[in-house]
C-alpha cells in the first residue's frame, strides 16, 4: 500500500536564524470563509435556505434535483446553482422544469468556492423566503473544504458505489448533515448492504441523518421534503425569534 495521506513532513519547526520572523496566524481559507459569511448574511436577509449538494460524479445529484425542484416549486421560490468543470447541460435540465438555474463552469477547478456562489446568486431572481440548491462539482474530496455560506451540506451517495465510501472519503461525510442514499431501487440487484453503509457513515459522523431515495421512481422523496420543510420552519422560527 502506498499511503500518500500519511504525513512525511514530520514535526519541523521553522529554523531560528538572524532573519526576521513574522507571526502571521491566519487561516489559509480565510478569504473564502469571509466571502462565505457574506453569502450567509445575504441568504439570511432574503430568508433563503441554502443547501450544498455534494457527491461523486454520477451519484445522481442532478436527477435528484430535477425531481425535487419539480415537486417543490409550487411550495417555495426555488433557485439552483450548478457547478461543473464544463458544459451547461445540468442547468438546462433544471431550467426545463421551469426553475431558475445558473451554471458555473469552474474550468480546471475541482470545487465551487464562495466567490463563485456569490456571483451566481446575483444572477438568480429574488428567492424571497425560498430555497437555494447549490449542486457542487462531482468530487468527494475538494468541496469538503470550501464553505459556500450554505445552511448545510447534503451528501448524495448511490447504491452503485462501494459501502465503504464514507471511510474512503471521510472529510465529506463528516462535513454533511444529511446523507441521501440514491438509486435505492437498484439495491436488490446490487446486493447493496444498507446497514453497513450507514454504520460506516456514522463512524466518521455520529450525527449524520440518513434517508434512502430513488430519483428514478420517486421512492423516499416525501421524507426528504418533510426534512426540508422542517429545516425551513426551524430557520423561520429562528428568524422570528431574532426579530423579537
Amino acid at each position: 500500500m502506498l499511503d500518500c495521506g500519511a504525513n512525511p513532513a514530520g514535526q519541523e519547526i521553522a529554523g531560528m536564524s538572524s532573519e526576521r520572523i513574522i507571526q502571521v496566524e491566519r487561516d489559509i481559507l480565510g478569504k473564502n470563509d469571509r466571502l462565505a459569511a457574506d453569502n450567509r448574511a445575504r441568504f439570511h436577509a432574503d430568508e433563503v435556505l441554502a443547501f450544498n449538494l455534494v457527491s461523486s460524479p454520477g451519484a445522481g445529484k442532478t436527477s435528484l434535483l430535477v425531481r425535487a425542484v419539480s415537486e417543490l416549486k409550487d411550495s417555495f421560490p426555488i433557485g439552483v446553482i450548478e457547478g461543473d468543470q464544463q458544459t451547461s447541460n445540468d442547468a438546462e435540465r433544471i431550467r426545463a422544469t421551469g426553475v431558475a438555474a445558473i451554471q458555473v463552469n469552474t474550468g480546471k477547478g475541482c470545487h465551487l468556492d464562495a466567490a463563485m456562489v456569490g456571483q451566481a446568486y446575483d444572477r438568480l431572481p429574488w428567492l424571497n423566503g425560498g430555497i437555494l440548491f447549490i449542486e457542487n462539482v462531482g468530487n468527494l474530496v475538494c468541496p469538503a473544504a470550501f464553505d459556500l455560506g450554505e445552511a448545510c451540506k447534503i451528501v448524495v451517495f448511490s447504491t452503485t458505489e462501494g459501502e465503504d465510501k464514507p471511510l474512503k472519503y471521510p472529510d465529506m461525510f463528516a462535513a454533511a448533515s444529511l446523507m441521501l442514499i440514491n438509486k435505492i431501487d437498484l439495491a436488490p440487484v446490487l446486493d447493496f448492504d444498507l446497514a453497513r453503509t450507514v454504520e460506516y457513515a456514522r463512524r466518521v459522523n455520529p450525527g449524520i441523518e440518513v434517508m434512502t431515495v430513488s430519483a428514478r421512481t420517486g421512492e423516499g422523496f416525501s421524507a426528504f421534503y418533510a426534512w426540508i420543510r422542517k429545516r425551513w420552519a426551524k430557520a423561520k422560527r429562528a428568524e422570528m425569534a431574532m426579530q423579537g
Partner: protein
Amino acid sequence: MHEMALCEGIIGIVEEEARKRSFAKVNVVCLEIGALSHVAPEAMKFCFEAVAAQTIARGARLEIVETPGRAWCMACSRSVEIKQRYEPCPCCGGYQLQVTGGEEMRVRELEVD
C-alpha cells in the same frame, strides 16, 4: 487538486503581509496543518512551488507543522487523540467521537528578509 487553491490562498496572505510589514523576500513559509484537515502535506509542497514561482514567495521553503487530531469521546467522556476520522476511540473502541481539534489550516509565520 484543491491544494492549488489553498496555495493561492497562502500566496494571497503572504502578499498582504508584505504590503503591511514591508518586506521584499520570503525565505520560509511556516504552516500549521491539522491531521484531520483537508490537506496532503506532500501535495501542498508540490503545488506551492508552482504557485509561488511568479510571486514574492518565489523559492521560499514551505515548512509544515502538523497538529494532532483530537476528539471528544461521548462514551468515555474524555478527550482522545485520533489520526483519522474513521478511527475508533483508543480507549473504548467506539465511534461516538466528536472532532474537537486538528482541522486547522493556517499560515503560522514567515521568515523574511
